[in-house]
C-alpha cells in the first residue's frame, strides 16, 4: 500500500514553487515525479522583445541568489558578439563580485541545509555571518542582492582604497568563521547523522544524467568551468577545484565549504592585484549577426547561455540553461528509496534555484484535506510492510 504526498508548490522546505509528487510507503519514497511550470515566467520570449541593455537586468532577475552569474554569463557572450574587450580593471571587479556572490550563496546554502535539518542555531549563525559579505556587496554595488554592476563593456562602479581594505578585512573574519562551521558541520552527531549516506549518487549516474556543480563534484567528477574553460581572469589566478568522493549530502557540504575557502583566496588575490585603469568601454547599441555560447561557473554549477544576434538592437534568441535544471534528473534519482525526512535535505543539497531552472516555468501543496484519505487499517499494513522490507541504508545508523 502506498500513497502520494505532494510537496510544493507551497511548502516550507522549498522557498520556491515546484511540485514533487512523492509516492511513499510508510516513510520510504518509492517514486518521485517532478512537475515544473509554477515558476515559468516566459523569459526567453520576453528577451526577444527587449534590447541588449534591458536584457542585462532581465537576465539578472532570473535568479536572486546567483543574479550576478546570469548577468555575467550574458554580458560575456554579448561582449564577444560585439567584439569588445573590457578593460582589465573592469574584469577584475566583475569577477571579484562573482566570487563574493559565490561566498554569499554558499553561506546561504550552509544555513539553509541546517534549517532543513532542523538545526536552527547553525542556520542563525551562518546567516549572521553572511551579513558581512552582504554588506560588502552592498558597499561595492549599491544593492544587497541584484548588484547590477555589469554593463556591456565593463562594470559600472569602481573600487576605492577604503573599500579594498574592508573587503580584505571581511575575508579574514569569514575565513575564520567558515573553518568553525566546517568543524561544527563535521562534528555535530545529529547533523552528521542526518546527512551522511543520504542521497547517494554514484559517479556513473552523475555522468549519465549530466549533473553539474557541487552535486557532480561531490561524486568525484571534477568539472569546473573556471578551470577547464578559464574565462576572463581565471586563467591567471591560483585556485583548486574542490571535490569529495562520498557521493552523498555530506560530500556536498564538504565541497561547498572547500569552495568557500577557495573563494576567499580568489577574492584576496583579486583585490591585491587589482590593475589600474578604466573600468568600462563604450558599447554599441546594435550587434552584427552571429552566435555565441557563453559558459560560466555559477555557485550551483555550469551556467550556459546561447545567444544569437540578428543585426538589430534586440537578440534573435537567448537560451538560458541554469544549473538547477541540469540537476533535476539526478535529484529524482537521489530521492528514490530515501526517507520522507530526507526530502528537504536531498533537495536542498543540489541548492535548488527553481526560478533559475524555470526562468520563465512548479510541486503542489495539497494544502488541506483534499488529498488522499488513508484508512487506519492501511496505515497499519504500511507500517508492518515497512518493517518487513525496509531498505538498509548505508551509514544510516546513529553515528555516536
Amino acid at each position, binding site marked *: 500500500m502506498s500513497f502520494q504526498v505532494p510537496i510544493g508548490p507551497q511548502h516550507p522546505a522549498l522557498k520556491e514553487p515546484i511540485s514533487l509528487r512523492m509516492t511513499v510507503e510508510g516513510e520510504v519514497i518509492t517514486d518521485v515525479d517532478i512537475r515544473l511550470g509554477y515558476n515559468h515566467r516566459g523569459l*526567453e520570449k520576453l528577451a526577444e522583445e527587449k534590447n541588449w541593455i534591458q536584457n542585462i537586468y532581465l537576465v539578472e532577475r532570473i535568479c536572486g541568489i546567483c543574479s550576478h552569474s546570469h548577468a555575467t554569463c550574458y554580458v560575456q557572450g554579448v561582449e564577444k558578439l560585439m567584439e569588445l574587450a573590457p578593460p582589465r580593471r573592469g574584469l577584475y571587479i566583475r569577477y571579484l563580485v562573482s566570487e563574493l556572490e559565490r561566498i554569499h550563496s554558499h553561506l546561504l546554502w550552509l544555513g539553509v541545509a541546517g534549517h532543513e535539518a532542523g538545526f536552527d542555531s547553525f542556520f542563525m549563525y551562518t546567516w549572521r555571518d553572511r551579513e558581512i559579505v552582504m554588506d560588502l556587496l552592498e558597499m561595492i554595488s549599491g544593492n544587497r542582492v541584484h548588484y547590477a554592476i555589469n554593463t556591456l563593456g565593463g562594470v559600472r562602479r569602481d573600487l576605492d582604497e577604503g573599500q579594498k581594505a574592508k573587503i580584505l578585512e571581511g575575508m579574514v573574519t569569514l575565513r575564520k568563521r567558515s573553518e568553525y562551521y566546517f568543524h561544527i558541520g563535521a562534528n555535530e552527531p545529529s547533523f552528521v547523522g542526518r546527512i551522511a549516506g543520504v542521497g547517494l549518487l554514484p559517479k556513473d549516474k552523475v555522468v*549519465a544524467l*549530466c549533473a553539474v556543480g557541487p552535486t557532480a563534484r561531490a561524486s568525484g567528477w571534477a568539472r569546473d568551468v573556471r578551470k577547464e574553460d578559464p574565462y576572463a581572469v581565471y586563467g591567471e589566478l591560483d585556485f583548486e577545484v574542490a571535490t569529495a568522493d562520498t557521493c552523498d549530502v555530506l560530500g556536498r557540504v564538504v565541497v561547498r565549504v572547500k569552495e568557500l575557502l577557495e573563494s576567499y583566496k580568489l577574492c584576496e588575490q583579486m583585490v591585491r592585484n587589482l590593475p589600474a585603469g578604466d573600468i568600462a568601454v563604450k558599447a554599441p547599441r546594435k550587434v552584427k549577426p*552571429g552566435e555565441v555560447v557563453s559558459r560560466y561557473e555559477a555557485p550551483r554549477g*555550469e551556467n550556459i547561455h546561447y545567444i544569437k544576434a540578428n543585426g538589430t538592437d534586440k537578440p534573435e534568441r537567448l537560451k538560458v540553461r541554469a544549473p538547477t535544471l541540469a540537476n533535476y534528473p539526478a535529484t529524482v534519482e537521489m530521492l528514490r528509496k530515501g526517507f520522507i525526512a530526507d526530502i528537504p535535505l536531498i533537495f536542498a543539497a543540489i541548492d535548488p534555484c527553481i526560478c533559475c531552472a524555470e526562468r520563465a*516555468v512548479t510541486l503542489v501543496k495539497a494544502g488541506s484535506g483534499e488529498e488522499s484519505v488513508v484508512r487506519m487499517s492501511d496505515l497499519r499494513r504500511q507500517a508492518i510492510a515497512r518493517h518487513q522490507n525496509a531498505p538498509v541504508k548505508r551509514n544510516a545508523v546513529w553515528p555516536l
Partner: protein
Amino acid sequence: MTDAELIEKLKADLGDKVAEIANPARRRLFLKVAPSDIIAVTTRLHDAYGVVFLSTISGVDNGETFEIVYHFSTPETDFNLRTEIPRADPHLASITPVIPGAILYERELQDMFGMIVDGLPDPRPLVLPDDWPAENYPLRKDWKHTRPEEVIPGGKS
C-alpha cells in the same frame, strides 16, 4: 589536442556525416549534421571522444526551419552539434538512449517549439501551465502574446 587537429580528426572520422565544421572561437566547435545522423554522430562522439556531458539543447525558430543546437562539453573543447528540421514536419530523434540527461531539454523543446521528439521515454509537458491552450508554442516567432489589461486596485487610474 588543439582545435585544428581535432577538426582534422573529426573530418576524417565522421566523413560525410558532418556537413561543415566551424571554429569561431577557441574551444568552440560548431558541427553541422543532418537530422537523420544525429544519433549516429552523438554515439560516435560519446564513445570515441569522451563527449558524455550535454550542457543543454537550444532551439531556434528560423522561419521555414527549426534549428536545434546540442551543446556538449568536454574538459578540452565544447562541441555544438547543429541540425535543422523543416517546420512543416518537425520530427526529431531523441538522444536519450545515448545521454539520459537529455530528457528535460527535449521535453522543453516539445513544449516551447512544438517539435515532436521521437523515442522520448516521458513525453509529458514540462514547463507550460496545465491550462495552456494546445497548439500554442511560445518560442515560435509567429506566436504573439497579447497582454491582459492591468487593473490596479484602488479606484482612480
